[in-house]
Structure formats: C-alpha cells, structure tokens
C-alpha cells in the first residue's frame, strides 16, 4: 500500500509532529517503503488465530481500591517547562 502526500500529512497531524510541506514527499516515500515491507504479513494464514494480548498467560493482580500515595505536588511539577501556582501552564486554549 502506497502512502500519498495527503496521507503523510494526515499521519503527521495525528502524531502531533510538525512536518514542513517540503518534507512530505520524502516522508511519504519512506512510510510507503516500510509499509511495503509489512505487506508480507498478508501471506500468513491467520484464520482462527486470536490476536495476542499478553505474551505470558497471567491474571492481573488486584489490590484494595485505596489511595497509596499523594501529597507530592512539588515533585510532580519539578520537571515542568512552565509551572505556575501549583499547576502546569500551557498556551491559552480557546475554542
């Protein structure tokens, strides 16, 4: 399956990665090459085979539904590029 420039633009948008218009053709070619490689999977008969969800059969552990930590606001904000008054700060969001 070949990826055209419009699809490459859409994928970049969905991935929230800015790609300049001039770079889209090269991106489309690269993605097409990789997806072409994946086409081999169509040769495999997967009839009746369930998609793997867990490589080791295991039951997830359960625990009491109680708070186990908290009160670490300063630590959580410590690495933020922009933190103000105890919050993460982001550009104004107006719809």
């Amino acid at each position: 399956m070949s990826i055209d420039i419009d699809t490459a633009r859409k994928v970049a948008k969905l991935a929230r990665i800015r790609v300049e218009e001039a770079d889209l053709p090269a991106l489309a070619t690269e993605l097409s090459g990789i997806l072409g490689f994946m086409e081999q999977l169509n040769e495999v008969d997967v009839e009746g085979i369930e998609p793997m969800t867990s490589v080791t059969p295991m039951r997830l552990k359960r625990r009491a539904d109680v708070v186990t930590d908290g009160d670490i606001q300063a630590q959580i904000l410590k690495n933020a590029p922009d933190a103000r008054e105890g919050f993460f700060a982001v550009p104004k969001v107006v719809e």
Partner: protein
Amino acid sequence: MTHLNELTIAAARDALRAGETTAVDLTMACLTAIDAGDGLNAFVHKTPDIALDMARAADARIKAGDAPDMCGIPLGIKDLFCTKGVPSQAASNILKGFKPEYESTVTTQLFNAGAVMLGKLNMDEFAMGSSNETSCYGNAINPWKVDGRDLTPGGSSGGSAAAVAADMCLAATGTDTGGSIRQPAAFTGIVGIKPTYGRVSRWGVVAFASSLDQAGPMTKSVRDAAIMLGAMCGHDLKDSTSADLAVPDFEAALTGDIRGKKIGIPREYRMDGMPAEIEKLWADGTAMLKDAGAEIVDIALPHTKYALPAYYVIAPAEASSNLARYDGVRYGHRANLKAGDGITEMYERTRAEGFGHEVQRRVMVGTYVLSAGFYDAYYNRARRVRALIKRDFDQVFAAGIDAILTPATPSAAFGLGEMANADPIQMYLNDVFTVTVNLAGLPGISVPVGQNAQGLPLGLQLIGKPWDEAGLLNHAYVLEQAAGFVAKPAKWW
C-alpha cells in the same frame, strides 16, 4: 597484572570479601578508565561523587559482613533507566534536563544490594536503533577496531556494550525490545541476557514497546550475568506484568553439565546470503554443545520470516502510544512558540524539535497502523502472526527441546555511517535473529564464541524456555567454557 576495572563481578566480589581490595579502589579504577575513555562516548552523564559515596557505604557493609554479591560492584546504567536526581534522557532531546524524582525498580534493587553507579550510558534514542547512531549525544564507538574505521558497538544498548568491553565498568544494565542487549553484546565480545518477559520490572524504565521491553545485565562472563540478573529480577507491584515467581539462584545453576539436554537448531535461521563466517561459527557452537554431551536436533520454526515485519508493526504501534506523553507540558523540552500559536502548535513544534528522525518515523508508522481503517489490516494481523510465532516455540519446547542455538547477528560490527544511506529496512535486518525472542517473550542470551577473519568478535544466541533462565545460563556457561573466548580489544582510545 589485571587492573581492578578489568575484573569480573565474580572476581571482584571474592576479592572484596577476602579484604584484598575495596569498593572505593574498584570505583576509582573505573572512574579513571571512564575519563580516559571519553573518545568512545559511552558514558554521557558521569556521577563520580555519587559513585564514591556509594562505594564508601559498600565498604562499610562488606566490613560488617554478610554483604550481597553485588555489594561494591561499580556499574554503568543505561540512560533509559530513571535514576533519582540524575539526568535520564533516553538519549533524546525531548527529555533534555529531565531529572527524575524517583528511582527505577531495577536500579533500586541493584543499589539496595550495594552496587555502585558510575554514571549513565549512551544508547539509541528511546532505544530505537541497532547502531547507537540515533542518540542525541552522538555515536558511541566500539572499542574493537581493525582498520581506520570507527565501528558501531551495536544498539540500542551501545554505550553499555562499549563501556563493558572497554573495562570502564565491571558490568552495565541494558534493555532489549528487539535485540538491544544481545546484538551489542555480540558486536563487542561480551555476554548479554534478555530475561523472560515479566522477570524484571519495567517500572521506571522509559517505555518503548511495553509488551516487548525487558531489562537485563551486560557483563564480561556468563557467571557475572547470573549474579547480576539475580539482583535485578523479582516481583514488583508497580509493574502489573511483573511475574510473581521466586527468583532461583542463577549462579548455583552453573553446573557445566548439559549431558542429555536437547539443543534445537532451527532451519529457518539459515538465511539466504548468510556470511560463511557466521555459518561456521554456528556449526562450531553446535559441535561444542554436542561434545559436551547434548543431543542436537533439527527443528522448524515456520513463521520466523514474518517476525521482523510483525515486530515493525507492533513495536511502532506501542511506541506511538507510549511516546504520546512527550507533549512539552509535564517534563523535558518545550518549543518556543510564535505569536498566535495555540496548544496544538505547541505539541507539534515540541515533538518535531525534540524527537530525532528515526523516532519520528516510528511514531508515525505506529500512528498509521493504529489509525481507523488500518487497525485490523496491520495491527491486529501482526498480533495474530505474533501468536503463531509464539506457538512455533511452544510446540518445539513441548517436544522436549531444552534450548535453541542460533547466530546472534547476521554480521560482525559494521562501520559507523555505513548504513546512513541504506533503506531503514536494511538496518532493521540486524534484529532478524533476535526479535522472535521478544515477540514470544522468551529468555535469550548472547555469548561471544569466536572472531571473524579480521579479528572482530562474533556471538551466538541461546534461546530458553519461559522462566528457565537458570537452565539457559547453564547452557551458555558450557558454550562459553568450550569457546574459550578471551580476546580483548587493543587499547587505542
């Protein structure tokens, strides 16, 4: 005379307990070797003050008696592990300046056992690469050199491999999503084991592909791998996929006796165009195990050829989801915004500036295969093929095979920059013998077995049954003893 930084973990442990050396002396020897090894670009954040504090504490503990095996052993830590207060960037500009407020479970366990952290090690960005060439810190360089070229130490754990092979540390942590411990170990003449999925906690390890990632030790010998793995694994409530199983004494399992064990040789791993030197190495390794009394059995793993394409659907899909967290809000890099830029522009510019080319490519491939209309055709199909790959192994083990022997890599280490213009698929082929093991969640170990005509190290891979790291390590120990690989890179750096 052997310098202290050249010791194995086992030899250093014994010397420490006998009072013949101290953790401080061991650590000083490593710190000196690290400073002399800047040309290899293996250590990217050095922590000498932390190291000496830890070494002094270890010496006190050893003096008091009853110190664990890893007490006083100086280690390098891959940059993918979160280490409290110490830069942990996954070799990415998007995590520039990030200093975690917490410690990963693996490093917590190692440090609780008394191990000493020398610093953080170079790697491919977010562990995506097979040559350490996608790192924001620049290439790590293989201490092995046979002509004018600088060679890759492999990837993604390239800094770990270079540091251990160049005796800058006694051992290092690595992580392996598609071969990132085993391929660099093979390229540098050291031992690297990827445990069974779930054996080692992933908590605090920067996530690449969560259903495939496992941490493991990279060491100078199989015995060291057994000792260090024992300290790294165990059940962890903070990782829901961590297995609640007892950890065996892996070192005690190294009996050297594999008489009557069945070793599978998978015919599908005999690839077209396989170099003669790899073919010969494989045959030599097979003969060594046979001479040790094992029974050699031809086996079939029919879905092998579909492992790479399945991996390159599943791993990017999981990566695109895991890496969504790098948005410029909570940690790491945020782009400078232009007038009128809103939150979407902030995300898009931050991720374009912060992620390198290979990471962007994989995030976009992952986004595509998970997008509406393609999820079934790519992602679900790949997961069904993955189930078949695992079934191949299940059937072989059910038929009585104890371990499987394969080459670790399709070639010896290649030159840095030599793959720059190659198709990305060419680079992905480095993982052809190792990805099956991640897809099936099995333990796999790379053991140095020989050298090519130019003198570069070559490794073989042994694959074990789920949770049978003990048996796997014993097979690897027999192979190591028979191969007698003792070559070291001549110091040029």
